[in-house]
């Protein structure tokens, strides 16, 4: 019961922060509030016994992305552009998408239902044999690194390639090919080769 009460108060906090983000125009305040939003959702994950997810959310959502947004904010004006006219088309799209999602929620299995399909496939086997076979108490680690090791390899490579793409975009302009000294060096090397 207390879990439910804490979750309801955390979610109402998140709704309030989301509304404040929507109505605020100062970018700095918006970034700090989205960090607070991530921190509260991390607290909610702890409350739901998903400590590993909470850890990631607190470190990446509340910590790192806030820092990245602040670094990006240095190139933006302090205030968001204000739209005076009410935008009808985006409002309609949001309402339609939102109501479609709410309609789909009605067909999902009940929250935390142990008899739902996703909990019937391989999860019981993992939970039953994980400790006897691997002697590792944290079942999240065994599923992530051993049973689903190939998926995690893909995940690591996704992080690597995503980082590589962002680095190429951000550092393309400042690459060494534009540096006059190195271009002179290569020219000199070519001269040497010709000789």
């Amino acid at each position, binding site marked *: 019961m207390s879990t439910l009460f804490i979750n309801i108060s955390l979610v109402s906090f998140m709704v309030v922060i989301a509304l404040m983000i929507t109505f605020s125009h100062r970018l700095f305040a918006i970034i700090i509030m989205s960090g607070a939003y991530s921190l509260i959702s991390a607290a909610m994950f702890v409350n739901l016994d998903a*400590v*590993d997810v909470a*850890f*990631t959310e607190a*470190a*990446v959502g509340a*910590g*790192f992305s806030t*820092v*990245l947004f602040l*670094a*990006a904010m240095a*190139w933006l004006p302090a205030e968001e552009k204000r739209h005076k006219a009410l935008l009808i088309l985006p409002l309609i799209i949001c309402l339609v998408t939102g109501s479609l999602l709410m309609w789909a929620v009605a067909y999902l299995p009940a929250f935390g239902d142990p008899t739902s399909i996703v909990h019937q496939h391989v999860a019981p086997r993992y939970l039953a044999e994980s400790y006897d*076979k*691997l*002697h*590792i*108490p*944290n079942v*999240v*680690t*065994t599923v*992530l*690194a*051993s049973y689903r*090791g*190939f998926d*995690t*390899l893909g995940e*690591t*490579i996704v*992080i*690597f390639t*995503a*980082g*590589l793409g*962002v*680095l190429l975009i*951000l*550092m393309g*302009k*400042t690459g060494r090919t*534009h540096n*006059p000294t190195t271009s002179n060096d290569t020219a000199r090397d070519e001269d040497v080769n010709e000789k």
Partner: protein
Amino acid sequence: MKNNPILRVISKTLFAPIILYGLYVQFHGDFGPGGGFQAGVIIAAAFILYGMVFSLDELKLLAPPSIVHALMALGALIYAGVGIATFLLGAEFLNYDVLADYPAKGQHYGIILVEFGVGLTVASTILGLFMAFAGFDIPKNTARDKNRKAVGRSQNKRASDD
């Protein structure tokens, strides 16, 4: 922020404990919450704190970008390398059973190596992203490019005059 003594002392004092905590999360992930993903972010956070309090140039001395970029690939290579090693030892890809005398021990070795690869990739990717974002400068570059073009043009002119 470099001249504020409180920030400077506290960030230098916190640097080692943050990394120690990251290593704890990394290698204790089998027993408690945590693992490579979380540990990578925590270790990168220590470097980001250093870079924010001291300057980006100081951070680049501490963690040279070329090494950070190489570690990004090395982590993924360690992970895939464990898979190749199990291949060569005669099991399926990423089947850690064959890495030691008996399966449970092999699984322990495999999981620790794989999580280390994940942590390495995540930490260096996040650090590289931070350095790229913090060191990104459009106006300076365009100004420099214009100057260089102007210099190049004048040099060309001089060459044609000669």
